[in-house]
């Protein structure tokens, strides 16, 4: 118990350190840090309907983050959530296009299936390259993100192009209203229940199955697990596939829920934010739910800033990046203070 208190305290301390760095950057760029932070706080958590907005962004983020946590736990640095998210959305969009006209209760499950398979496949090839040849997954999944981004541009300006669209951003034809699983506010009972199901089933997988324990051990010491006779590639491949499928699922939700169509370069920070959520939560499923709400709030503030407060939305990117810079830091000092306190108390 005191161990997890230490890690929560550490996460909070380094988030504060990150915010201080952000304040410095904002001031250098000529913004009042005070104004900036109060606007962000307002946009993220305090304005009317803030919780709704945080959920709209937080639920898909949570699903992707759970996938990231599963692959990180197993020791694989799959940072390709963004690409898997895109490919999942693209596959779902294609299926929706092909089955157009069929009843919703057929189309929607098919789209979800396609999205998850697409995301899983986009994680499969880096997984195989890693497990069979030892090719480092950090670079391959990163390159996968860029490739998926190009694929999205191609799809939205080619096969699925919306001819009537006149904006500067290429996008696909909008989904028929019957196939949408939420309105553009992006919160519906279906989405909430999907997120709850994902959270529950993944919590069970991690905490109550042999797979969960093996991957936890393998992530910390693959050599030891090998000497116990485990087939690491099985655990590894499953982790890659699950994390890809969940990112693809989140992409499908974004497509069929709030967005209703594909747009080139949509939600460019989704994967990175999901990685942050998993890390801030110390790779726990439960913690990811809390962290997702926080980062979901920040994501909604990114839209609020330029429109309501007249401030640049890149401020949110900077906050996220600064948190990433510090979140894995471990200062002896915090450990010592916490140990001292727990000893004094008990």
């Amino acid at each position, binding site marked *: 118990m005191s161990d997890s208190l230490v890690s929560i305290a550490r996460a909070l301390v380094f988030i504060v350190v990150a915010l201080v760095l952000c304040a410095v950057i904002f001031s250098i760029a000529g913004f009042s840090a005070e104004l900036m932070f109060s606007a962000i706080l307002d946009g993220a958590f305090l304005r009317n309907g803030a919780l709704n907005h945080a959920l709209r962004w937080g639920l898909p983020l949570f699903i992707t983050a759970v996938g990231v946590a599963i692959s990180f736990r197993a020791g694989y640095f799959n940072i390709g959530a963004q690409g898997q998210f895109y490919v999942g959305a693209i596959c779902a969009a294609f299926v929706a296009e092909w089955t157009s006209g069929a009843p919703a209760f057929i189309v929607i499950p098919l789209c979800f299936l396609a999205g998850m398979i697409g995301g899983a496949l986009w994680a499969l090839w880096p997984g195989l390259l890693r497990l069979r040849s030892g090719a480092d997954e950090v*670079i391959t999944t990163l390159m996968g993100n860029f490739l998926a981004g190009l694929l999205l541009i191609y799809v939205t300006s080619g096969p699925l192009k919306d001819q009537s669209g006149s904006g500067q951003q290429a996008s696909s034809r909008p989904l028929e209203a019957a196939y949408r699983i939420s309105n553009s506010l992006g919160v519906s009972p279906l989405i909430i229940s999907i997120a709850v199901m994902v959270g529950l089933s993944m919590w069970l997988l991690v905490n109550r199955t042999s797979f969960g324990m093996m991957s936890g051990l393998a992530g910390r010491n693959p050599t030891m697990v090998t000497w116990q006779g485990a087939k690491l590639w099985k655990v590894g491949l499953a982790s890659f596939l699950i994390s890809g499928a969940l990112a693809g699922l989140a992409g499908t939700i974004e497509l069929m829920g709030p967005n209703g169509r594909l747009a080139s370069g949509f939600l460019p920070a989704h994967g990175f934010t999901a990685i942050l959520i998993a890390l801030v939560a110390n790779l726990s499923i439960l913690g990811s739910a809390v962290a997702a709400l926080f980062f979901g709030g920040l994501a909604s503030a990114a839209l609020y800033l330029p429109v309501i407060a007249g401030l640049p939305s890149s401020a949110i990117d900077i906050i996220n990046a600064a948190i990433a810079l510090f979140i894995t830091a471990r200062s002896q000092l915090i450990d010592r203070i916490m140990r001292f306190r727990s000893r004094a108390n008990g």
Partner: protein
Amino acid sequence: MDDIIIAILRSGTPLVYVTLAGVIAQRAGIWHLGLEGLMIAGACATILGVVFTQSIVLALLIAVGVCMIASVLFWFVVEKLKANQIIAGLGLTGLGLGGTTLAIESIFGSQAAVSAPFGLPRIGPLFGSFGNLSILVLLMPFFVLAFWVLLRRTRFGLRLAAAGEHPYAARSVGIEPSRIRLVALVIGGALCALGGAELAAGSLQFFSQNMTAGRGFMAFAAVIFGAGHPVGAALAAMFFAIVGALGIRAQLVFGDRVPHDLLLGLPYIATVIGIWMSARLRGGAKAISGFGELRDN
């Protein structure tokens, strides 16, 4: 033919500078995923420097200074706070991308591209059709050679490698690995600034947000591909540039028959193949990060 070579040199030179930064960091024991962020900071600082000081020399100095300061921050987080190199590197990249966007937004009021009245000096008409290339292209081979000498033929290079490969061995002869890494990262920061400067002010003379488009990550892949050897890594970087240039060329040849966006992906695919090949040749990469430490309990 000339124009292909010019195109390759233009896209390859920034990559080579940033790759050298990755090589020196990797030799010292740091897997540097912040290259992308440093590169875009260098690009942005160079263009803004030219706009505001009207001097390319001052602009370069500003860019180098900014990247060196950011490198010191990265060093502090990774070495002193013991943060995970990969995640902290991605964070530095995010700071570079977000920070440069914020900078141009706060100065010019929009996210549109910023152009500069002039760029880096050209190498001049003496070189015929190559005369329009910047002097950083001309200097690039000398930098590679200098790095080869520095890393492979000096005692400093040996100490750097010892600090990266066997920090305890370094400590036992009185070398402080963490200090060596600071030196390596700061030198690397300066090189990233040059790479960014060449990218933005070499032939283009403008800065737009996210203009590095993953080149920093490609440079990182070139480091792995080249097994940390400066010449090998530089060649790998040039290889990625060649693939990119051929893709653009193929576009002119094939026209609409092959989707344009997919040809743009060729360098990324080449990078993946490069990583895969180097893993096959060397029997699997060492895990570049300690995962166990990502989770505390």
